C-alpha cells in the first residue's frame, strides 16, 4: 500500500513543459512513477519525451486516465491549476509551487476540503513511497523502502531524517512533506490518519518546527487515534522569540510556539522526541531494530 502515491498513481504534471516541471516530472518518471500526461494550455498535442501534453486537465483525465496532479506552475497560476484539477475529478493534488498568496490558498482549501480530495502543499517537496512512486522533488536515492511513515513541514529536514534512518538500515513506507505555508491542504493529523490506516506503516516519525500549535494538536490526535508508535523531532530549540525562521509561521510569539512546549506536549502523550535528527533516528532504531 503506502499512502497518497503508489503503483496506482497516474500522474499528470501541470507545467510539464516548463524547465522545472520537465526536470522533476521526468525524474519522477525515471524513478518509476507512472507519468501519463502533462498539461500546458496551448501546447496540447505536443509531447515531452513521449509524455502527451494536453490543453486541459479534463483531457488528461479522459484521454490518459490521470488520477493525480502535480502542480509545478508559477504562483499566479497555481490556484487556478488546483481548481482545474479538482473540478476535472483528480483525487490527489500535490502542489510544489511556493509563494501562493495565503488568502488565495484559503479559498482553495475551503473549496477543496469538503470534496474529500487529498491536497498536499503548496510549497512542499511532495510525496515519496519508496519503490513505488515519487511525486515531487524529494531525492528518492537517499530513502529505502520500509515500514516507517515520515511526515514533515520541512523538505530538506525530511531528507536529513530519512537519510539518518537509511544509514541505520531503516526504510520508509511513505515520506510526506506537508509544506510550511500558512495554509496547507493536509495537516499532520490528516497524514497521521492515513498512516494509521496503512498496513505497511508500523512506525511514524513526525517532524515539526516552532510556531503555531499543529504539533500540539497532532499529539492529541495521536493519543486519541493512533495505535502505532510515533516518534518526533522538532526544529528550532535554539530559535530566538519574535523572529520568523524561514517558514511563514515559524515564529515564537511570547511563550507559545516554542520547541520545548511542543516537545512537552508530545512527550505527555508518550511520543519520544529527539532534539537532533540523529537522536530521533536513534530512538526509532532502538524501538524498531
Amino acid at each position, binding site marked *: 500500500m503506502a499512502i497518497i502515491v503508489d503503483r496506482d498513481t497516474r500522474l499528470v504534471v501541470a507545467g510539464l513543459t516548463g524547465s522545472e516541471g520537465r526536470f522533476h516530472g521526468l525524474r519522477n518518471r525515471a524513478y518509476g512513477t507512472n507519468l501519463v500526461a502533462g498539461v500546458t494550455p496551448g501546447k496540447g498535442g505536443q509531447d515531452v519525451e513521449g509524455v502527451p501534453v494536453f490543453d486541459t486537465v479534463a483531457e488528461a483525465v479522459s484521454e490518459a486516465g490521470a488520477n493525480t496532479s502535480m502542480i509545478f506552475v508559477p*504562483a499566479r497560476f497555481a490556484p487556478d491549476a488546483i481548481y482545474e484539477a479538482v473540478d476535472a475529478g483528480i483525487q490527489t493534488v500535490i502542489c510544489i509551487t*511556493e509563494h501562493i498568496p495565503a488568502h488565495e490558498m484559503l*479559498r482553495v482549501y475551503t473549496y477543496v476540503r469538503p470534496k474529500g480530495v487529498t491536497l498536499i502543499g503548496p510549497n512542499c517537496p511532495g510525496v515519496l513511497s519508496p519503490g513505488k512512486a515519487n511525486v515531487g522533488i524529494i531525492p528518492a536515492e537517499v530513502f529505502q523502502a520500509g515500514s516507517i511513515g515520515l511526515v514533515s513541514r520541512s523538505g530538506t*529536514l525530511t531528507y*536529513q531524517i530519512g537519510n539518518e534512518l537509511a544509514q541505520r538500515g531503516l526504510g520508509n513506507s511513505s515520506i510526506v512533506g506537508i509544506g510550511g505555508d500558512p495554509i496547507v491542504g493536509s495537516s499532520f493529523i490528516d497524514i497521521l490518519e492515513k498512516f494509521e490506516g496503512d498496513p505497511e506503516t508500523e512506525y511514524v516519525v513526525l517532524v515539526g518546527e516552532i510556531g503555531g*500549535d499543529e504539533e500540539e494538536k497532532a499529539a492529541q490526535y495521536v493519543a486519541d487515534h493512533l495505535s502505532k508508535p510515533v516518534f518526533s523531532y522538532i526544529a528550532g530549540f535554539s530559535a530566538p522569540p519574535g523572529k520568523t*525562521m524561514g517558514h511563514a509561521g*515559524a515564529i515564537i510569539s511570547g511563550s507559545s510556539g516554542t520547541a520545548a512546549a511542543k516537545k512537552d506536549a508530545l512527550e505527555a502523550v508518550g511520543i519520544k522526541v529527539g*532534539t537532533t*535528527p540523529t537522536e530521533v533516528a536513534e530512538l526509532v532504531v532502538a524501538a524498531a531494530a
Partner: protein
Amino acid sequence: MDLLEYQGKELFKRFGIPVSEGRVATTPAEARKAAEEIGGAVVVKAQVLTGGRGKAGGVKLADDPADAEQKANDILGLDINGHIVRTLWIESASDIAKEYYLSITFDRGAKKPLFMFTTQGGMEIEEVAAKDPDALVRLHVDALEGYQPWIARRLVYGAGVEDPGEQKQIADIIGKLYRCFVESDAMLTEINPLIVTPDGTVKALDSKFTVDDSALYRHEDVAALRDTSAADPLEALAREKGVTYVKLDGSVGILGNGAGLSMSTVDVVVTAGGKPANFCDLGGGGNAQGVVDALEVITRDAQVKSIFFNIFGGITRCDEVARGVLEAVERMRIELPIVVRLDGTNADEGRRILAEAAPPNLHVEPTMLDAAKRAVELAA
C-alpha cells in the same frame, strides 16, 4: 511584511474605517509644520515595528506646534527595543471615553480568518484572554461564505456593547475591516484601541497590520512602503539580496537549504557546544549566485569565526552549491574556515568539485553532526 502605524491607518482610511487626521514627520521642523496644519493638540507617535512604544517614551501629547517640535525632538533617535525612531506620526489628539479592541488574524490551525473583539481594549489581547476570557469574543469566518452582517452582530452583542450608536458604528467598522483584511492580503489587522470619544464617535486610534509577502506583487503601493532604515543593517542587506537571514549572537555562521534544515542546523551547532551567529536559509532552489549572496551577508558579520554550510539537495543540486562556494571563496577572498556538508541530489559530483579545488580553508565533512562539531572547533 509589517506596516507602521500610519501605513496601516492609510489602508484603514482607504476602506472607510475612521481614523484621526495626521501627518508623517521625520524632523522636529516637519512635526511643527504638521501640528500647525492639523491644528489644536496633537499626539506625536514614534513609528517603529515593535510594541511598548508608550512605556519607552515614544508617544507624547503636544499642546501646540512648538510643543510638537519639542516632543518630536525628544522622540526622534530613541532606541525602542533595538529599533531606532526615524519617523513620526503626528495626529490630532482624541478624547477617549472607552477603549475597545478589534482584530482579524489568520488562524492557521482552523484555516479560517478569526475575528476577536472585546470592550476591554487598550491592553495586550493575551492579557484580556488570560484575565477575563468571557469578555473576549472570538469568531471564525468561512472564507467562501465571506463576511455577512450576522458576524458583526455576534461580536457586538456578544461583547455587550449596549449603546445603539456604538453598535451601528462598530458593526460598520467590522465589515470594512474584513474587506480591508481580504483585499489587502493581510495576515493580521488589529485596532487596539478602537476608541469611543465622549461624544460617541468610534475610531481606530492605532493599527497593527501585516501583509502577506507572497501577495505583495499585487500591492505595489504597499510593497513600496517597506521601511529598511530601522532594521538591522545585515538583515536589510540580506533582504536586498533576497536571502532569508536572521542575525543571532554567536560565532558560527550558518547556511542551510530549507527553513527546517537551517533551523535544525542552528540547534545542532548549539548541541555541539557552539554559538550560532545567524540563521540563513538558501531556500528551495539555491543556485551558485544564491550561495555567493548568502556568503556575502554572513561574512559581513564581524562576529563570525567559522561558517557551516549544511546542504541536503532536493530541488537544490549539490554540484551547483559547490561551484557557488568556490566562486564566493575566490571572489570575496574568504579566509574564514568553511565547513561543508553535502548530501542528496548530485552530492557526489559536488564533493568531487570541492575535493578537486580544495582551497585550504575548506573542510568537507560526511555528516551534519560531524560538520557541526568541526565548525564549533574552528570557531573556538
